[in-house]
């Protein structure tokens, strides 16, 4: 229920739309009931007048019938437009809302979560929420308002009919949904969870087809997905049976309502309390009134599904960010100075509480414009230093100062604006070469792009491409070699205007010669910037002002 309240809270800006949608839907439903009732009465009245050989005023009922027919048709059209417009707007906004809450969590808060799962949340789960307004709120509210009206109307003619209708409405509108809730809750929520699970498997599997095929695990993968798919089918099948049963139950209830009209009204017509045409009128009324009950079983199912989806969404968005944004409440935006100084005082970082530190008691002071190498073997925690520097993870000890100011004074964003990072595991977006570079600096001119590409010796490659800077790099840089990805990532860091350049293992995947050439070129060109070089080999070390050697922990 907490999710329910939260969802309603999110929908508050759309209150106007929502009320309009419910209003239109109600008008349409009522118009239909009136249309059917009057038509039944009208035909019978005409026939009886014909038999009696008298004339009757057929203009008024005919006009009402026309008006109701138009109201029903146009009302349904307007209602659909309004409700869908409202819900789609809500959903579009929610994607942004979700992104805004997910973004501060990365990377620390999303660690251990599969990207396919996060993907399911911003995609399918939010889409599921479409139904909350469309299939849950609107029909429930319409039924809530219309049913008492129907009961009073029936009660005016016959208490017995009114009572029967109340019982039938209860069976169709409360008991049937309750049974679905009881027998289908697990299946409905499983359906959401299982498809999210399958999506995660598919994302991971499709991205790793190469090794899967080579290591002969494609059959396992196929079988896993197949099992997940048939699990999904089992849930869907159970829901399908319930859906079929509830639909039939409602058809039956609507027929029984008509039957109740026969049962209670015939004696009253026979004893002359009512005129004949009242009988067909109430019969058709009883049947038509079920139109507001029919969507309720679907509503309950949609309700369960949206609850699960909302729970998954809020489960992520309610997390507290772990990185620097979590511990810098009084932080302000501080623009980086042209050449900031940097000082690490006995800094330690542990990825989880109680876990061994990635690095411990690290002290380092970097003067403006200084070139510092951090050297050490693989797995010693060199890359973790970057996570600490850019505030992705909270420090477990010590403090970092920029220009003598403690980290906690900086807002997360202004802190990151100090560093131009070429990470060890760079991500390339499925976009063009240009698009990937512009991530670092959206205002960069083509001249600037060509300059950084030249610095990393990619100019020739780009020139050889038909589309030049606009050639696509493929998913995760799939059309590039490992060395090209590395160099593009270095170029991206060079393009960033940030004053401290951080290169993490820039030589990975490169020829030693090329590594040296690129490093030398960067050291020649980037005279204004402070440079932190994280590496395990000796290239360009002789040109550094300072070396910090990390050795194996005891």
């Amino acid at each position: 229920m907490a999710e329910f309240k939260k969802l309603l809270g999110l929908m508050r800006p759309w209150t106007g739309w929502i009320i309009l949608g419910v209003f239109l839907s109600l008008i349409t439903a009522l118009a239909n009931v009136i249309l059917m009732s009057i038509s039944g009465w009208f035909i019978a009245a005409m026939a009886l007048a014909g038999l009696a050989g008298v004339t009757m005023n057929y203009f008024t009922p005919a006009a009402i019938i026309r008006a109701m027919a138009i109201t029903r048709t146009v009302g349904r059209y307007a209602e659909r437009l309004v409700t869908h417009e409202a819900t789609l707007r809500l959903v579009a906004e929610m994607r942004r809302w979700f992104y805004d809450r997910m973004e501060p969590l990365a990377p620390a808060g999303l660690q251990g979560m599969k990207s396919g799962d996060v993907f399911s949340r911003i995609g399918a789960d939010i889409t599921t929420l479409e139904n909350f307004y469309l299939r849950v709120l609107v029909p429930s509210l319409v039924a809530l308002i219309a049913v008492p009206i129907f009961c009073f109307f029936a009660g005016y003619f016959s208490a017995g009919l009114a009572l029967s209708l109340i019982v039938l409405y209860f069976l169709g509108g409360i008991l049937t949904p309750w049974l679905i809730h009881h027998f289908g809750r697990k299946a409905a929520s499983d359906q959401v969870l299982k498809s999210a699970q399958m999506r995660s498997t598919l994302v991971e599997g499709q991205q790793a087809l190469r090794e899967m095929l080579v290591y002969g695990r494609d059959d396992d993968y196929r079988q896993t997905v197949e099992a997940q798919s048939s699990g999904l089918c089992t849930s869907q099948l159970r829901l399908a049976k319930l859906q079929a049963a509830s639909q039939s139950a409602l058809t039956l209830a609507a027929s029984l309502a008509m039957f109740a009209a026969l049962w209670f009204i015939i004696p009253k017509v026979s004893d002359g309390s009512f005129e004949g045409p009242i009988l067909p009128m109430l019969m058709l009324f009883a049947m038509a009134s079920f139109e507001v009950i029919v969507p309720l079983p679907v509503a309950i199912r949609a309700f369960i599904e949206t609850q699960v989806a909302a729970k998954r969404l809020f489960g992520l968005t309610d997390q507290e960010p772990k990185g620097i944004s979590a511990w810098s409440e009084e932080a302000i935006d501080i623009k980086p100075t042209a050449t900031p100084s940097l000082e690490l005082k006995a800094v330690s970082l542990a990825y989880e509480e109680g876990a061994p530190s990635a690095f411990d008691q690290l002290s380092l002071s970097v003067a403006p414009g200084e070139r510092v190498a951090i050297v050490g073997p693989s797995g010693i925690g060199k890359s973790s230093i970057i996570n600490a520097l850019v505030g992705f993870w909270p420090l477990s000890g010590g403090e970092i100062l920029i220009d003598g100011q403690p980290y906690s004074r900086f807002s997360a964003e202004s802190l990151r604006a100090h560093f131009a990072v070429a990470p060890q595991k760079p991500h390339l977006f499925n976009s063009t070469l240009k698009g990937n570079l512009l991530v670092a600096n959206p205002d960069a001119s083509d001249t600037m792009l060509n300059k950084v590409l030249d610095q990393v010796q990619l100019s020739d490659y780009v020139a050889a491409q038909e589309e030049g800077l606009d050639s696509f790099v493929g998913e995760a840089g799939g059309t590039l070699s490992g060395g090209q990805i590395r160099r593009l990532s270095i170029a991206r860091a060079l393009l960033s205007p940030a004053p401290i350049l951080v290169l993490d293992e820039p030589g990975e995947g490169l020829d030693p010669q090329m590594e040296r050439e690129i490093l030398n070129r960067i050291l020649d060109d980037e005279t204004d910037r402070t440079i932190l070089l994280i590496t395990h080999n000796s290239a360009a070390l002789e040109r550094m002002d300072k070396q910090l050697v990390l050795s194996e922990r005891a």
Partner: protein
Amino acid sequence: MSTKHISAFLKAQSRRARRPLNLSIVLSFAAGIVLIVQMGVIAFCVDSVLTHQATLTDLLFLLPPLLILFVLRAVLSYFSERLALKAAIDLKHTLRKDLLTRLIAKGPILERGSENAVGDQVTTLTEGIEALEGYFARYMPAMVMTVLLPFAILAVTLTRDWLSAVVMVVTAPLIPVFMILIGKGTERLNQKQWRKLARLSAHFLDMIQGLTTLKLFNASRREAETVSRMAESYRRTTMSVLRVAFLSSLVLEFFATVSIAIIAVFIGFRLLYGNMTFFDGFYVLLLAPDFYLPLRNMGTHYHARMEAVGAAETMVSVMEMDDGSEKKEGSLDALPDLKQGISLEFRSVGFVYPDGSRALEDVSFTLAAGQSLALVGPSGAGKSTIIDLILGLAQPSEGQILVNGLDLSTLPIAEWRAQLAYVPQKPTLFSGSILDAIRYGQPDAGIEAVEAAAKLAQAHDFITGLSDGYNHQLNEKGAGLSGGQIQRIAIARALLRNAPLVLLDEPSAHLDRENEARIQNALHALEQSATTITIAHRLHTIEQADVILVLEQGKIAEMGPHNALIEKDGAYAGLVRSSFESKSTEVQHG
């Protein structure tokens, strides 16, 4: 892709569930017949009361059969609905299986520059497949019912009142005509909507996986705008599809309502003037809405069809692409024993990507069992393509690859791959324990064998240093481990296979010099007995190779052992001079 083509595909799919779907139609038709009878009984009751002053007691004999008809109709529609939904669910499952099999068979070699991203594929396999339910469960049966039930009602109407029947015959065909006129443009709109959804999904996945990078460059706020923009644009496209769908529903309903009104007016005045019995008039009027109901519903079903057509476009192209699974003539069912060693021969092998760009041309070489080959050359020279061809991830466009004299394309591919140990440049580790990651290629390997391989790959020490050792759970893509650690786990994974053919893609590039020296030894031990092909960047590896293949723009520039090539003083010697000038320090440092 044309709508007709996609429709044909969908129809062929639904034929797989012909039996349950047909049965569902039969049951649904039976329910319709029950409805016709039921309405007759009700009309009779009302007529008796109104025009013959019958009392409830007079009609008591009719009430139990009426109740039975109600129940019968409910039961029939239950089974009809259930069958249709079950058929749709089964069809979706089967199609998902088929599509996945196709996608796996196609493998990881994507067309260059294509937008076909994993996010897109995943959306097709999930949301795309789900979008077909309406087509299978509703559209297909409805198409038949639209014809059957109205005809049955028409037949009954004809016996009661020919004028109403004439109105029905005249108005009914107008409805589908108008709907199709409106629906014409929606086909393209639907495909556009679906493509937008696929692009949106692919973008989201890419964005989520690159969120850390976006944050590093403070680009995440800009990305937020992109999310808003894409979501908004998808909303607009969806709404434009829906607007047409709703409009066609409006038109259908309007026509149906007007038609019923015409029938009612004709009946009403004939009743007033005493030209018709009340029973006939009332009965026909009760039936009239059900005559138009299937036609009215066609709007909804037509929308379901359009939605399915939009979603199925990608599926059709996946199902129709050549997955290379066609067995070549003379294919072998079992792999000959290769444990004795593998010799390889490339005979004028060429490879062209589907988009026409050439990756390899006329590559020929032989490699005896136990020999090692180093592939050398600039990025994009075709080194990785040679590895992909041997891995069977791509098929040569020209020429042949011979394994111990047998054409590789005739060998059973899974068994062939089991003979290979492969260390890629960017190894992917699956989420799960380190233990499972190392025995990925040998799921039944014991812990001793895993530890031995890890020791050889210099991974044992850091693994046992983790709090939960070999049971340490890896995050997606090995997040939390360093590049070097991932590399060493990948080497252990390859070592565990004890394979006669080893394919390495710069295995030492990520390691510090101390580990690299040790791993060189481990790999050397592995290479002793195995045939080895290495994409090499380190002179040390290259020098020791039996054969060096220098590639330039997909062609062999030079071939031979190190000393011979140096003596020749050609491309290789130049490459060595330019790339490894200070080789003394480099070899020392690895």
